[in-house]
């Protein structure tokens, strides 16, 4: 079994990059073998691609449930472990407990959301990767996994679609 090649096609505009997807389809290259890299977000529909799945909302939900339990712990459980009677109020009066629980829910939800981005994007990752500095200058990179025997056909297809450069992607320190 031969090792797959990674080809990086660099486009200056969205339109030719989007049309290149049709060319890839014609070559029998599926969506899962293609990665689009951009310097600013573009809707996947513009490239005729599916929305990538993100578990970040799930992280937020789990974090908020965790925050709820920690809030309940602080507002209802710890006052009984360390009773402190002040001003004739109960140990866990309703309204002040809501304040504590609310803040804990929000704190843990937002921390989890942040961690969700970190885990889902596998940050930090300082290993060598396929990249081109012109991407952050507005160019659109289409990174394609192919069998070596498809290389010349792919390069022709990408150039015909309007790619500025097409080359074998090298892993580099970014």
């Amino acid at each position: 079994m031969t090792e797959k090649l990674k080809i990086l096609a660099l486009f200056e505009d969205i339109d030719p990059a989007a049309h290149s997807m049709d060319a890839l389809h014609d070559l029998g290259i599926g969506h899962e073998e293609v990665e689009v890299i951009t310097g600013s977000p573009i809707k996947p529909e513009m490239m005729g691609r599916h929305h990538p799945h993100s578990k970040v909302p799930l992280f937020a939900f789990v974090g908020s449930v965790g925050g709820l339990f920690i809030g309940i712990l602080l507002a209802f459980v710890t006052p009984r472990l360390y009773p402190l009677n002040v001003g004739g109020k109960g140990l866990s009066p309703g309204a002040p407990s809501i304040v504590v629980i609310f803040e804990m829910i929000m704190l843990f939800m937002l921390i989890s959301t942040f961690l969700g981005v970190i885990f889902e994007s596998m940050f930090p990752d300082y290993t060598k990767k396929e990249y081109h500095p012109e991407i952050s200058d507005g160019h659109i990179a289409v990174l394609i996994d192919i069998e070596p025997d498809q290389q010349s056909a792919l390069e022709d297809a990408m150039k015909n679609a309007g790619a500025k450069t097409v080359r074998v992607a090298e892993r580099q320190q970014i």
Partner: protein
Amino acid sequence: MAVQAESKQSSHAGDHSKLDPKDHLLLDPKPRGEMNAMVMEAMQTTHWRFWVAVAVLGGIVAYCLVYMWIYMIQEGLGVAGVNRPVYWGVFLVNTVFWIGISHAGTFVSALLRVFKAEYRRPFTRAAELMTSFGLIQAGISILMHMGRVWRFYWMVPYPNERMLWPNFRSPLMWDLLAITTYLLASTMYLFLPLIPDLAMARDRSTGWRKKLYRVLALGFRGTEKEWSHLHHALNIFAFAILPVMFSVHTIVSWDFAVATRPGWNSTIFGPYFVIGALHSGIAAVSMVLIVVRATMKNMKYFIRKEHFNALGVLMLIVSMGWAYFFFNDFMVQWYGGDKWTHFLLHWHEAGPIGWMWFLMLIFNIAVPWLTLWNKKWRSSPLVLFVVGLLINVGMYFERYIIVPVSLGINRNPFSWGEYKPGVEIYLTIGTFALFILLYMIASKLIPLVPVWEVQEGQLAHSVRKIGKAELPAVTDLE
């Protein structure tokens, strides 16, 4: 004659049918590489006056903040003006003021993102930075107020040999929770949209900057998955950080409102404080943007009169909101008939600090109402800066009147007294200097304009011809 009239009308219509894209950043796009270069140049070009300002501010911070704080710790809180009956002085005024300033970043960034207000794009980061740095000043002010600052950890809930546990029914503990939540949340909300711009800076830096941005960009490349995760997170943050923002200043207001003191025990204090925070915060954002635009290279392209116009409208609306809540608070207390409240209100208007009460109303209501209704005036950086400065002075007066002035009058006339700040004056100057210093340093280390957001906005905007008019059209790309 009829023909002449028609021709005149047609020419008149023609004058107004053309949209001048130079007025609108999102209709006046430049290539992304050029915008990147402009932002990098603004960040990396430093005039000698910048270093002089940094040195002066550093000196002020060293003397007014560090030295004076150490002096106060050594001598005790007696060197501050807080004493019976005014136990809460300028430290608490500063805390409320800086938390108010910090509201602007979240408001401008999150609320305008939720409502898809497109003009926000170039200055969200400049505003978010104010949130983080403002909260640092608020936290420092609380620590100063504590006196024995080294006992700070007593507020942290963890099992300990002292058998002390924080009282979660106390508004002061809610403060700790809310401010901690807000500081962490706003810092994460600042950092997340910064990642793509740090990657951009990494791609066109050398030396120590390259190393710094490489670490901070976390290996971001801009893959579909990375953008998708970032997009989801920013949406969650934008919606969730708003109630946190409201909760912070509401809880700060409860520090006062839950006490059965004349002038404080008001059910409307929560929203009154929140609107006050927005009033000073948006005014401060305007001032910062004007300074950034005037002092940093290439910023005139990103920050334009349209942005000052939009912020001026916001300032006017918030000023009206503040006047509404102020009048509500005043009216009910005045009507209530409680003699101590009556004494207090009279003290506000006719006491030795009465001038401050009237200036507060002039700066917070009269000045914005008389100036910001005019589009030409509110679009002028100079006018907006002066109005913003006066609003902030007015809002500082408002907090001063609420805290030490109101504490001078209570239900025990034998203990009435005036407050005269001591070392707090230096410490206040120190917090202002530290805020400006941190902001100046940050403006040279991180891209102050979120270039990817601007590019996204420019991609979404176009000019559409309807009839004879060319009008801006927006496509929803978020």
